[in-house]
Every structure is written in C-alpha cells, then in structure tokens.
C-alpha cells in the first residue's frame, strides 16, 4: 500500500495541542500517575536497599549489591517484557485488572508500575547511598552522643539531612522516568506514546501529533523542573539557608553573559 505524503496540517496540530481528545488526555494522565507512583515506590525500595548496602551484615550487603547489579545491568524494555509477558507465558503470574478504591488498574499498568519501580529503585538506592555518605560523620556521632541508637540516629538525623543531597539527582531521574514511560507501549499500556501512535495511524498526521506529544512531554518535565526548584528551596529554608533569589531566567542570563565574555576575551 502506498501512502501519499500529506502537507503539515496546521489546524490539526493546533486542535490536538489545545483541545486534545479525551483519549489523548487519558494517555497523558496515565503517563503522569504511572511515573509518580513508580517513583514514590522506587524511593521507598531504594532507601531500604541503600540501608542494606551499608549494613554490617555481609549477606544483606551481598543481596542488595546483587539486586542493584541485575536491575541496573539489564534494559528496562527487557525487564518489562519479562514481568508482563514472560511471567504470563510461563503461567507463573498473570497481571489481572484490579479495582482499588474505586479506581481500576488494568493488568499492563500494574506490570508497568511494578517494573518501573523496581528498575528505578536500583538507581535510587545508589543516589540515596551517596546522599547518606555525604552527611558528615560528626552528625551521626552527635546523635549517638545524646543517647540515640544507630537506628534513631539514621531516622532522625542522617536520613533527613541526606534528603538535601538526594533531591537534585532524584529530580534528574524522575525527569528521565517520565519520558521512559513511552517504552511501556511495548506491553500495551495506553499511555501518551501509545495513544499518539494510535492517533497517528488512524489520521496519518504523524508529524503533527508526535510534535504535540513532544510538547506535552516537554510541559511535564518543565512543570517538574519548577516543582523540584521549589522543593530544593524549601529544604534550604528548613536549614536556615537564605535563598539567593536567583530565578531560572537570571541564571540563564548569567550563563549566556559568561559565554559571551569568554568569547570576547578569546577574540581580544
């Protein structure tokens, strides 16, 4: 079959961008809640794995190290197919549609959340491990000196302080996670990418609809950038660190001024 080329349809592009179909919005919604739920689970699992890697028990360290090694060392795409199709094909486990608190989660979405959370938890555990290591050892000693147990010191002193070092790389990972949800289309999760593909094949407006999708992904990551900046400023304030009042625009301006002066001085 020959598909004749269509010129860029401006009105289709704007219509889908400004008044997206309910199907597209549903995909967008799934992309968001799958990312958020998976990231939240990944932080919890990652914290447990990070603490296990610092354990005094060699076996616990070994198990945690193995976990990170496997999950970071294999592609997310392969993990997805193993968890959703592989487990079902061998009759080990089949993800069934499930209704929780009045919300129905279809099987593929459950598999997606589980796999993304496990995959991301391996990266989170490394980020949290680095965050814990960045807290000065004197903080732990101060907590112990007032009679805290090592567990209390971890909970009330070390982990809260590690958060300050964890948020920036965590934000970076979450940004990647939101975009990586597009691979979920492989197991049939009706998220933004799969819906976009469907619209594309039924309308042949491939360029227009994928450009719309790109703008929506960009909007999601942009919103997250602002949330992250707000979170970082909030943590800084809770440490009594005065905000420097440097907006993102100011930072950009500075960056370009720097590169311009550099260019000038090189010419001079």
């Amino acid at each position, binding site marked *: 079959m020959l598909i004749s080329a269509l010129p860029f349809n401006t009105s289709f592009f704007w219509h889908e961008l400004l008044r997206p179909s309910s199907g597209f919005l549903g995909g967008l919604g799934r992309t968001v809640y799958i990312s958020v739920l998976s990231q939240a689970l990944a932080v919890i699992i990652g914290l447990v794995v990070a603490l296990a890697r610092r354990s005094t028990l060699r076996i616990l360290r070994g198990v945690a190290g193995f976990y990170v090694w496997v999950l970071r060392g294999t592609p997310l795409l392969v993990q997805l197919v193993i968890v959703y199709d592989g487990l079902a094909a061998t009759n080990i486990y089949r993800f069934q549609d499930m209704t929780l608190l009045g919300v129905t989660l279809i099987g593929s979405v459950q598999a997606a959340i589980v796999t993304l959370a496990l995959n991301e938890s391996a990266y989170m555990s490394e980020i949290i491990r680095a965050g814990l290591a960045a807290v*000065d050892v*004197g903080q732990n000693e*101060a907590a112990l*000196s007032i009679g805290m147990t*090592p567990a209390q010191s971890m909970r009330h002193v070390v982990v*809260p302080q590690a958060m300050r070092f964890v948020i920036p790389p965590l934000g970076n990972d979450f940004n990647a996670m939101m975009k990586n949800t597009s691979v979920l289309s492989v197991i049939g999760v009706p998220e933004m990418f799969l819906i976009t593909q469907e619209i594309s094949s039924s309308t042949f407006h491939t360029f227009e609809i994928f450009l719309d999708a790109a703008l929506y992904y960009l909007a999601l990551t942009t919103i997250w950038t602002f949330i992250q900046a707000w979170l970082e400023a909030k943590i800084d304030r809770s440490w*009594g*660190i005065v905000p420097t009042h440097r907006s993102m625009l100011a930072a950009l301006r500075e960056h370009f001024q720097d590169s311009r002066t550099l260019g000038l001085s090189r010419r001079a």
Partner: protein
Amino acid sequence: MTSSNPPGTRLNGDGAALILEATEIRKSFGSQEVLKSVSLDVTRGEVVVLMGPSGSGKTTFLRCINHFEKPNSGVVWVNGHLIGSKLDRGGRRVDASAREIARQRAEIGFVFQHFNLFPNRTALENVMLGPIEVQKMSKDKARTLAVDQLTKVGLSNKMDAYPAQLSGGQKQRVAIARSLAMSPALMLFDEPTSALDPEVIGEVLTVIRDLANDGMTMIIVSHEIGFAREVADRVAMFDDGQIVEIGVPQQVFDNPTQARTKAFLSKVL
C-alpha cells in the same frame, strides 16, 4: 556523703564517688598503638584537663570513655556502668547491645571540636531532640527544658536561629546546652575552643567555668593553659599514648617532674 550516692556507685579509697574509672585502656588503629595502657579515675564534681601534643592519644582516650572507640583492652566504668559491656549470668564480660550502649551514652555528654549541631534544626530543636527521642519527654516539657538550658548558656535570644545563622562561639554553646539537656553525670569536651575565633573563645570558656562551679564532673581536652590553671582540679599530661604526669595545675605547670611535660610546656607557653 556516701548515703547520697545512687545505688551502684563505686567509691575510691577515700570514700569519694567515682564517676569515671578507666583502667589500663589500650587502643590501636592497625599497627599504630595510640593508647598504651591509660588509667584515670575521676570523682564526682572533679574537673580534669587533658593536655599534650597532638597525636598523643587525648582525643582517642576521650572517645573510649563513651565508646565511640572500642578499646582493645581495659575497662571503663562511668557512673556505675561498665561501658560497652555487660556481665552475663556467669559474671563474664560480654558486648552490650546497641540499645544498651545508647542508654549508657545518654549519661555522658560529649562536646565536639566542630560542634556537630544538626544544621536542619533550630537551636531550640537541637536541644529538644534528645529529651524527646531518647528520654521520651513530652514536647512541652522538652521545650521548657531546652529554653532553660539555652538561657543558662546565654542564648535566650537565639532559640529560633539555625546553626548557619550562629557564630562559632554561639554554636558551641548550643552544643553544650544540647548535652546538658540529657542531665549527664559526666561531660567530655574534645578541644571545645580549637575551632573558634580568638574573640569568642572566652564566652565558651565562661560557660564551662560556670559548669565547674555548679559541680559538674568534666574531662576537657584543651590547650588553654590559663583556663586549665583556673578550672582544673587536676591536669593530665599525655605523651605518646600514655599519661606521663598528672597532678594539680600548679604542680604540673610550675614544677613539672617529667622531661616530656617540660618539653611540651616550653612549646606552648
């Protein structure tokens, strides 16, 4: 005198209550022997200043007292507790659990050279944390206690300041208040003024001096000879992992008997 001592209190030959009894403490890091059999008894209300060249083992000895370092051998008793250990039913010494060690440490205040205040908590919250989490005190009671302690160290106007907003001298006074809030039987100071600007050393020493006048039992690692002369009941001179000389300040500073004490004093005076 003895009747006022709590049960389990150990007494020395003169019948004075022993707060610290450290006997033949040895500690090595790898092949480096940092403490070569150090013994020290401190009675209630006594102030002992530890001096000596850096690397002589003063800080390691202090850290062995509250079990930040586990001695390779030797015994530490603080306020009737065998630190880091307990006696099993057969009377043998076995390692104490993390929880038991924590309970022992709650009775020993430790003031660090670099303060180690919790940077994400205000001065008041720094002081309240121990009473709330360790002693399970109610928030209201802990707040009243923390306000009292901060007032005692002269910081009633800095309760809500974060460590980043305080000077070094103020930070160290908050750190002292944080330790005092646990009502310790013994206070350990690890070079409490070494990280401070000269003009704020005095305010921290004043707080420690007040504590001495209140009868607090203290062991202080310090290089401040004038201060030691004033507050110390005894000065212990460390060198090469041993106490080479110990006595009242006048004797140690003015009439040292050991060549190594004289050598150290000639460098710092």
